[in-house]
């Protein structure tokens, strides 16, 4: 193999690899719960587009699908389809605890009109379908917002 063809191959592989690396980056979602005095909270984190249509889920805290109907906005959008949260499901989050998730998220999610929502539900307590709704922007990274009932604060960092 000549030097010229080797360089051409290297340039081609680099050109193919770089866009892939640039299209996503690790984003940390930090959710801290209030001391609401109840059992662990189920949380659904999902994204809607500029028109409010469901795009996809980012995380599900709580593994029993029979309780997902209490995450009513998420449930309405997905029909309770557990395939939406396969591989992105963890345990429910206790009162006063902080859930920290680091995900490799597409760059296209930011500054494009997408909104991150959190639905929350706690056993024997009121459901909170619209707990948090924050626009996904690069400027909004690191800014903490308060939830309505169970979430003391939420922030995303890039």
């Amino acid at each position: 193999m000549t030097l010229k063809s080797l360089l051409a191959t290297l340039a081609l592989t680099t050109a193919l690899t770089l866009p892939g690396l640039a299209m996503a980056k690790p984003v940390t979602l930090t959710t801290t719960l209030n001391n609401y005095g109840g059992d662990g909270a189920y949380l659904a984190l999902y994204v809607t587009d500029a028109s409010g249509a469901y795009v996809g889920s980012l995380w599900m805290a709580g593994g029993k699908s029979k309780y997902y109907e209490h995450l009513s906005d998420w449930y309405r959008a997905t029909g309770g389809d557990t395939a939406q949260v396969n591989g992105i499901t963890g345990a429910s989050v206790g009162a006063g605890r902080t859930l920290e998730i680091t995900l490799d998220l597409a760059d296209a999610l930011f500054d494009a009109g997408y909104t991150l929502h959190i639905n929350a539900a706690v056993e024997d307590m009121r459901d909170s379908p619209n707990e948090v709704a924050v626009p996904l922007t690069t400027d909004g990274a690191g800014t903490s917002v308060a939830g309505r009932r169970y979430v003391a604060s939420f922030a995303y960092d890039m």
Partner: protein
Amino acid sequence: MRKTLTLLVASTALTAVIGTTGWSAMSAAPDGSPRPFAAIFEDAAQTIPLVLTSDDDDDRNWRDGSRRGDDDDDDDDDCEDDKDDDDCRGGARNPAPAGTVAPPQNGLFGNGAPPQVQVN
């Protein structure tokens, strides 16, 4: 035939008299005085425990208290005993935990590192 019937009636009446007399003697009042025959049945009626056939709410879980009716709670209770919840909610399976399968291809995730989670 008539003689047999008479004997049967007489023996039955005699047994009833002896039985009730003995029962009255065994269940005497605390002060030792004999009690009327009807009082025995009154006592029995009073000591029958009251059994509620409808379930109380206390053992239900995941109540909402605002919008959900009893039917939903009953459904939950039916599922509660299942050790694996695969049969709950009309066959809806629990999702695969993080780390066991790749995240869904919903356009939100890159192909880089798998999700990392930490609860503090």
